[in-house]
């Protein structure tokens, strides 16, 4: 039975109906998952211990209370006793909770110390949170030099516009369980290796969270936080940005693909080829059409969230680029500067660290020619020179 059938009833009958229904009996929708790393399992165990301790204390306390409520009521002729103190009792119920708490603190401390130990990592990846996407830089090992920008998958991005999604059934059919949890470029890591993450933010604070890995950590602008994981099982693990980071905070998913070492090696080789291509591409002169075509893609994934697909922006927060002085006229230097260095103190991030030369040239050229703008072409070489 699905929810729709029981809307008519009161809230309570809805719950009763639902609890019996299939969708909600699914344990994974009721409790913390135990995940795929030693950390996530340790955390899950800890969670279950404290949960049960609380349940037991609850049964004792509420039990006593309910017993008193049933037996010591005036309507049953109870006569009130007049005691109002018992030092012995009060000492006991101070000591017992302390003992319980200490016994909880011990495993918690152990788990925490293990989680915070980022030493002896096999490889490191830098994670940068940007409004509203993630950037992954592989900074050492065989994959060094690979860099990915990971944003909400375009199909999901279209479906999440106001009124676009239709019914829940539509969403379920189209996306299954992954609605808003799919990206264009997932983070790929090898299984069995200790991967160290260096987290930072480009604009505001974000938080990188994949429940199956067992932790989340904030990505703070100007500082680097460290964390680590070692995934045992190949698979696709999904998560979300967990710190409010503005308008599209809810649309900033994370997908981690853990690959067996061989598959991972193959993936690295493929990515390296892309990197080499990109480097070569930056050195040649591009045609206007190619730049615009590429720029449109870059724009859609990186800029449209604020400046809107039609270039109109959302004034006053996000300026229009269509028809604006900065994207017209023959001198592109201001435009290049605005995109590369951003506008400190606003949502406009500095994109020179986020996009490569070709993508920057492409997106600027696109902006200068789309929506009736007439601003001419910017070549990758010019970007390189401006760095």
């Amino acid at each position, binding site marked *: 039975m699905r929810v729709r059938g029981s809307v008519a009833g*009161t*809230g309570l009958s809805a719950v009763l109906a*639902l609890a019996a229904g299939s969708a*909600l009996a699914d344990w994974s*929708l009721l*409790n913390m*998952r135990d995940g795929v790393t030693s950390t996530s399992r340790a*955390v899950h165990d*800890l*969670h279950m211990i*404290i*949960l049960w301790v*609380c349940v037991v204390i*609850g049964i004792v306390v509420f039990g*006593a*209370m309910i017993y*008193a*409520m049933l037996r*010591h009521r*005036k309507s049953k002729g109870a*006569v*009130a*006793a*007049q*005691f*109002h103190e*018992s030092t012995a009792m*009060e000492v006991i*119920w101070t000591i017992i909770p302390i003992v319980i708490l200490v016994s909880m*603190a011990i495993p918690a401390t152990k*788990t925490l110390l293990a989680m*915070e130990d980022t030493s002896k990592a096999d490889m490191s990846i830098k994670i940068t949170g940007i409004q509203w996407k993630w950037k992954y830089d592989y900074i050492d090992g065989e994959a060094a030099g690979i860099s990915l920008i990971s944003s909400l998958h375009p199909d999901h991005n279209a479906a999440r516009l*106001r009124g676009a*999604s*239709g019914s*829940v059934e539509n*969403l379920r059919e189209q996306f*299954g*369980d992954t*609605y808003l949890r799919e990206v264009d470029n997932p983070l790929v890591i090898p299984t069995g290796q200790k991967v160290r993450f260096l987290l930072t933010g480009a604009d505001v*604070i974000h938080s990188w969270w994949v429940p199956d890995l067992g*932790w989340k*950590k904030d990505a*703070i*602008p*100007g*500082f680097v936080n*460290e964390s680590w994981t070692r995934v045992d099982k190949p698979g696709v693990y999904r998560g*979300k*940005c*967990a710190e*409010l980071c503005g*308008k*599209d*905070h*809810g*649309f900033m998913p994370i997908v981690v693909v853990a690959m067996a070492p061989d598959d991972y090696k193959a993936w690295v080789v493929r990515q390296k080829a892309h990197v080499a291509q990109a480097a070569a591409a930056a050195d040649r002169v591009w045609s206007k059409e190619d730049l615009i075509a590429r720029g449109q893609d870059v724009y859609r994934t990186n800029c449209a969230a604020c400046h809107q697909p039609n270039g109109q922006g959302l004034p*006053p*927060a996000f300026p229009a680029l269509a028809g604006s002085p900065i994207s017209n006229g023959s001198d592109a230097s201001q435009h290049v500067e605005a995109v590369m260095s951003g506008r400190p103190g606003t*949502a406009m991030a500095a994109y020179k660290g986020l996009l490569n030369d070709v993508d920057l040239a492409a997106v600027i050229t696109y902006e200068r020619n789309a929506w009736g703008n007439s601003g001419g072409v910017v070549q990758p070489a010019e970007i390189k020179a401006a760095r």
Partner: protein
Amino acid sequence: MSMATATHDADHDHGPAKGLKRWITTTNHKDIGTLYLVFALTMFFIGGAMAMVIRAELFQPGMQLVDPQFFNSMITVHALVMIFGAVMPAFTGLANWLIPMMIGAPDMALPRMNNLSFWILPFAFTLLLSTFFMEGGGPAGGWTLYPPLSLQMGEGFPFMIFAIHLAGISSIMGSINVIVTILNMRAPGMTLMKMPLFVWTWLITAYLLIATMPVLAGAVTMLLTDKFAGTSFFNAAGGGDPVMYQHIFWFFGHPEVYILILPAFGIISAIVPTFARKPLFGYSSMVYATTSIAFLSFIVWAHHMFTVGMPVVGELFFMYATMMIAVPTGVKVFNWVSTMWKGAMSFETPMLFAIGFIMMFTIGGFSGLMLAIAPADFQYHDTYFVVAHFHYVLVTGAIYSIMAATYYWLPKWTGKMYDERLGKIHFWVSTLSVNVLFFPQHFLGLAGMPRRIPDYSVQFADWNMVSSIGGFVFGASQLLFLWVVIKTVRGGKKATDRVWEGANGLEWTLSSPPPYHSFSEAPVIK
């Protein structure tokens, strides 16, 4: 002193001024208490209406009603309005009404300042709500206003900051008044350890307020200068740190959550003995527990920040300190249960709300304890598990205590009895629906739904719908509450002076409603 006596007499004979002037110029603690309570109820409905927008958008996955930015400002302002506009003024209103009557004082110690404390509030919230009509919209960075995000706000930013300053000034003045009243205005014989617990908890609360509101003022001032004057407090490039804001904020913020619950403990400690017809168990340990909670509340703030990347010793310290708070809070819960034990209980509406409070607050306390376990908090943090936690302590905690207090003292204030049948209906509908509203949010959080998002994956659809339905019913049942109050004020059975058979305390020795000036003649306390 003869001249003084003459003018003095004249004042007293006036009674309240007529019409609007009475409410604007009043220095009477009861009038001011009423103003606070009416204001708080209004804000509760405004904040609640925003909550209804939130629950309506979350009714189904997909974006249906509002834009993401507006959704963010709904959650932000919902929280600010509920905390600073509803719960705190409601407690201050209760303090105004009750503390002088409970300690045998003629009025609050500083009556004119008392009036000012109140009248700042409507202006402060006008300012806050007016930001919705400015370029860039209302604040949308969460009620915690973390930079750099909060600095991205538009024209409304300085208005919001000043609104917080004003509300803070109001609370500080209100708290000074409460402390001075309690320390200086007690009737002869009313020693500290004879004071009702509501007075005790408010004494500690007022202390917490005076110690922390200025810190919040400092924090938001730094936000203001970071945005407009080029300072670098929260900017790493200049040597500051965005996380520094969080430390300063939570140094205020954590004591703040006890500000929102200590007076509630006082209320429950008044109501349970009345309806159990048995003295409160462990009065002095209640006092010590309250002071320990207040002390501990200053050294646990960073449990809101386990994921910001603190050094691990810091995480351990804040984890242990936070867990400790369960001990004094437990003492309170056990004392209430012992008070009920072997009593002769009856279950009028105030008692129902008090019992509801004890159970559901404890549930919220348990989830709080789970959150305190740092490694587990790495999973819970910023999910609906946290949202469930704090609504259990805030709605079924703070709000329930305020409802209990209203039913308990309304007959004293108005001289008329409320409609017991409607009161009971209100309690049962609220209690069933509030659990439908917030209990499933534990599941959502554990299953991986982050908080502060306007849209979510389909596997969360069912529980969100349940939660929203619970929310609508709970919201609607508050209309019943409003009706009960209005009905009582407009007419009803005459209430006796003592009102409740088992009630104890000075306020019940006065007539119902009490005279305009409570104790012109100090009562004698045995």
